[in-house]
């Protein structure tokens, strides 16, 4: 359905009602269902778009790096302009956190935006000039753990086709202790094993390349630099689990990684690594890329499956889990980009190699993104056990302008913020969990002194509110009410029962939401109230913002 909708949007610039009706007749789907889907995804316009549609990223890293200034420059330049001509809106994280602030003009993304250029660009487009090229600034990254050192050899698949030692693969992953790198940390070997043992066919392998959480950029680096490791991981999973079809679900803002992957997939088909007879054997596996119609919620595994099925990306009630009732209700291995990549690394180099990689008692390697108030934001491949202090100060070059560290989020908004005093914490699943946070997807966002942590909590909560799918009450209504309450605190509107209400609301969202998104909405503010109680008190009691950011 999405391809059909995209085709209509290409032709008309939006989705006219009569075209939706015609499509309903063509594909035999009720128009109500088509509208339900089209109105869910921000990528689709149901009314004619403005001539210039400028969207500025408002989320964590861009918020820290001047996104607001870009937005206000645009706002004042186009004040009073007809919204049919120029529309200026916020947009959720575009996945350019290391090149913040990012913005989008008529669906083309520009990194390192600034107010003056943004206004000039919008004026040019309004005057009928074409959009400038969006230079893709890809930094080549040497992936240390790449067993092939840059050449795609597919040794794991080649060996597997020969030996057919499928159980050996599962054993190796188990021995290496590989866990899901998308954030949840479920043992990868178990997933593959359950799907392998599931009697139902067909089975599917799905790769989640929809990283959309503010600060999360590591999968982009992996896909651009070692696409073959990801693809090999998927083929291996397919052969082990007995699936003949793989789908790589990528966010639509990742055009360049998509091209890189597409080329690699083409190469694989040519070399017989994909297709009906892999390397001449009777083993089969097809792989295709599915471009997401957009939205953070699509990264939630069951919502992602719903999206592939052409529905609204609303998370399913679990159980049943995707390993048994996954895509099209069939057994499905659903792993993150990094998980497939590391699976290949482990299988090529051996579990012992992987286990030897960590430091300070931790195991393995991890890709992380560091962004926000750092000198060299970027994607880094580091041994597990590296401390957050090392990541911030050494890998990312420390805080610019000689400022002190105030706080950092180990994994974007969902991990909450930790104070500067906790930088000795190692990148270790258990250690970070014990500190009340999580390694998650390794989206490290750094806040320097002078930032307002209540403002950062509001920013993170707003992101969740904007990205809530609306399926269940606690998240749909709760996230909105939480934003209103926090906004009130930053504007001097408080009530004495606020703390009580906050506790009750947090509990309800955490305990009753269907999916992880709703459950983590209260996390950012909870972390700020725990680690920066003075900041909250300053706002509520003294009506003052230590960072001089709120009450303006």
């Amino acid at each position: 359905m999405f391809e059909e909708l995209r085709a209509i949007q290409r032709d008309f610039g939006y989705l006219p009602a009569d075209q939706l009706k015609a499509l309903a007749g063509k594909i035999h789907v009720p128009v109500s269902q088509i509208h339900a889907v089209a109105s869910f995804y921000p990528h689709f316009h149901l009314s004619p778009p403005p001539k210039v549609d400028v969207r500025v990223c408002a989320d964590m890293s861009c918020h820290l790096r001047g996104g607001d200034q870009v937005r206000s420059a645009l706002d004042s330049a186009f004040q009073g302009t007809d919204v049919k001509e120029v529309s200026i809106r916020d947009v959720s994280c575009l996945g350019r956190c290391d090149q913040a602030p990012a913005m989008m003009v008529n669906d083309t993304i520009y990194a390192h935006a600034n107010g003056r250029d943004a206004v000039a660009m919008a004026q040019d487009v309004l005057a009928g000039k074409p959009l400038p090229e969006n230079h893709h600034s890809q930094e080549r990254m040497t992936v240390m753990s790449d067993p092939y050192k840059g050449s795609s050899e597919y040794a794991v698949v080649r060996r597997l086709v020969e030996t057919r030692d499928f159980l050996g693969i599962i054993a190796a992953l188990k021995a290496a202790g590989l866990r899901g790198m998308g954030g949840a940390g479920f043992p990868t070997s178990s997933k593959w094993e359950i799907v392998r043992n599931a009697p139902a066919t067909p089975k599917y392998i799905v790769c989640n390349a929809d990283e959309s959480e503010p600060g999360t950029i590591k999968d982009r680096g992996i896909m651009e630099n070692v696409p073959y490791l990801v693809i090999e991981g998927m083929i291996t999973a397919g052969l082990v689990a007995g699936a003949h079809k793989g789908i790589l679900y990528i966010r639509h803002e990742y055009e360049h990684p998509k091209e890189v992957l597409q080329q690699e997939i083409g190469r694989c088909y040519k070399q017989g690594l994909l297709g009906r007879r892999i390397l001449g054997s009777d083993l089969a596996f097809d792989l295709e890329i599915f471009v997401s119609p957009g939205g953070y919620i699509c990264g939630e595994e069951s919502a992602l499956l719903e999206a592939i099925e052409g529905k609204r990306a609303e998370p399913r009630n679990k159980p049943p889990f995707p390993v048994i009732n996954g895509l099209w209700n069939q057994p499905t291995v659903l792993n993150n980009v990094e998980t497939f990549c590391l699976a290949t690394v482990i299988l090529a180099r051996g579990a012992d190699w992987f286990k030897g990689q960590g430091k300070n008692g931790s195991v393995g390697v991890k890709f992380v993104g560091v962004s926000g108030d750092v000198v060299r934001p970027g994607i880094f491949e580091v041994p597990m056990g590296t401390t957050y202090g090392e990541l911030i100060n050494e890998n990312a070059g420390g805080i610019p302008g000689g400022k002190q560290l105030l706080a950092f989020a180990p994994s974007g908004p969902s991990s909450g913020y930790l104070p500067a005093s906790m930088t000795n914490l190692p990148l270790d699943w258990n250690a970070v969990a014990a500190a009340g946070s999580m390694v998650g997807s390794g989206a490290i966002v750094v806040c320097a002194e002078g930032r307002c942590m209540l403002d950062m909590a509001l920013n993170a909560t707003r992101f969740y509110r904007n990205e809530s799918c609306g399926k269940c009450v606690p998240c749909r209504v709760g996230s909105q009410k939480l934003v209103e309450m926090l906004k009130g605190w930053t504007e001097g509107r408080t009530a004495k029962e606020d703390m009580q209400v906050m506790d009750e609301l947090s509990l309800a969202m955490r305990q009753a939401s269907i999916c992880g998104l709703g459950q983590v909405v209260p996390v950012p503010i909870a972390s700020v109230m725990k680690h920066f109680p003075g900041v909250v008190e300053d706002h509520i009691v003294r009506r003052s913002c230590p960072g001089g950011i709120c009450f303006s």
Partner: protein
Amino acid sequence: MNPAAKLVELTIDGTAVSVPQGTTIFDAARTHGIPIPTLCHQQNENPVGVCRVCVVDIGQRVYAASCIRQAEQGMTVKTNTAPVVGVRHTLVELLMSDHPSPCARQQHSGDCELERLAEQAGIQQPRFARRTTPRGHDDSSLAIAVDHEACILCDRCIRGCDDIRNNWVLARRGKGYQAGIAFDNNLPMGGSSCVSCGECMVSCPTGALTNRSAVGTKLEGGALDIGALLGLPIFKNVSGTFLELNSHAIVERKFRAGEIICREGDFGATAFYLVDGKVEVYLSSPIAHVKTEGSAKGFLSKLRSMLQSREQDERTEESSRVSIPIDAPVDLPYDHPIAELGPGDLFGEMTCMSYYPRSATVRAKTDCTMLEMLRNVLDIMQRNKTFREQLDRTYRQRALDSHLRSVPVLASLTPDFIDHLRNRVELLRFTPGQVICTQGEPADSFYLVRLGFVKVAQSRPGGELVLAYLARGSYFAEMSLLTGTPHMATCSALDHVEVVRVPGEDFQVMLDRFPEIRRKLEEAAAEHMEQNRQRVTKVADVTVDQFLNQGLMEAQSLLILDLDRCTRCDQCVRACADAHDGVSRLIRDGLRFDRYLVATSCRQCRDPLCMVGCPVGSIRRRNTLEVIIEDWCIGCGQCANNCPYGNINMHPFPVELDDPAYPGRRMAGVKVKATSCDLCLDHAEPSCVYACPHDAAHRVNPLEFFGGLLKRQTVAKSGK
């Protein structure tokens, strides 16, 4: 329950229970006397677990929605711990903070499920901020009122519509806090493909979807058993609860042969569905128009009004229609206006849906049984597939020929071609305001109006210009098809409209096969085009809004009174009455412009409201834009009521009528006929103008007269 199913044992609130595998926690608890509150779950629908009110503690990281979570062996379920009750309380409070309490349902029957839960939880004033962006109401459906404000997105209506009735009209729309429910592609409910089965409404836990009670009092007659109604194919798939709520809006009526069922010109609000027997439909009004006659000689000659048929008195642009459109599946022949209806026929649709006066008199020919209904029940029936198909079939078989041939330009169609069209045409329904074709878009069909009124309007720089209101028997979109140009105007449904769509290719075949029709259509089209061009030029010339708003610019000829000279002696009014059998068509009142009073006489409005609702379509415009009332006027007075300027009068005439007491016999009676000011066209000067002793009354051409005035004003203004 499958007796062979494996049992699972679990503990709920300390009680050990055993249920078949696959049972949800909710059902396990319920069957063991432990009720768990819920909003989104009901027994006849598949659970979705979206309201989360039914969450329970099963000792895991997060709570589980008991409505959808299956009981597992060894599970320990806690349904009412303090935190669980607290979470439930918060969820209800969240919903209540955006709920318009008391909602329509709470007001009506006090059983809004959300408000009841809130009351039980002791929630009076939610502590969360209220929603500030309105979500809206939708009153477009005749049967169901939609209040999006009260919607809690429990998806019960959606499952009712899609899963239970398989209608697939309802779905969610939007995302997050902006999400809501939508009909088709977010259409108003009344304009959607909704079949008014009522399932969504009976599924809704709040006042978001409520029954709109029928307008009109409770109908008299035999109350109907809901079971019997549901047995009729025309009520197939309708929710029983929904019919029960509307039970007072449909009754069974029995008539003896010869009994009158309804009379032309009467006001009403019901339609009749003939279950058994036959009825006769006819017009009892004389088929003639009001003719004013007098001597052209002598200034004080008295004018006399009389009824004359078009054969006796042919007027300019006299209609040549051979049939009279009425509010029934058939047209009446002009020469002998009588027809017969039988079982399965429906009449009185326009009266019922849009409250127009009855267009004809209906008399039972045999003993007959009818269903008489108010508009929300008619709406249910009309949206029912079975009934629609039956109406469609009847129309194609019986009425299409006469309907097509009633249009003078199409009179020469041959039976074989009509047979060809029989299966090609499509009957389309439109709700008030719905656009049928849009100005500027390519034409692909030819349309014939079957029911209701179609508004033809052009969008112009000065605003919308209504070119016509098309009644039954009119056609449109022919010009664009003839010339291959886009639609020149937007045609939209003024009320509940049904049109016959003839596909463009069949229209072309018709033009090729019947050169006579092509020629006539082309002539008519050329004429229309010229009129439109003239009108548009007029509009373009006069740009002063005030002048336009007063509805004066279209007039060919206006009667004006110079207030500086007028002494309000009312000689003009008296003269008019003298000239027209004592009924004055002139009221010395009207719009003022500068020092002139524009006396009330037909001013050929920009938006001719008088033409809306004539049940027999006997009022139309001449090419000069003046109103002309056709011979078959039934004297219902609709046009006189509609004219905002009081320019149409009802003129009584003595006639012979059927004697209701003695079928077959005639009796003396009075019939009224509509008539409008004709400016005494037979005379050199209207009598009112002649009669004015102060030289204050004038008949003028508004453009010439006011145009100069306007120019002076504009110059004066810009000079300041």
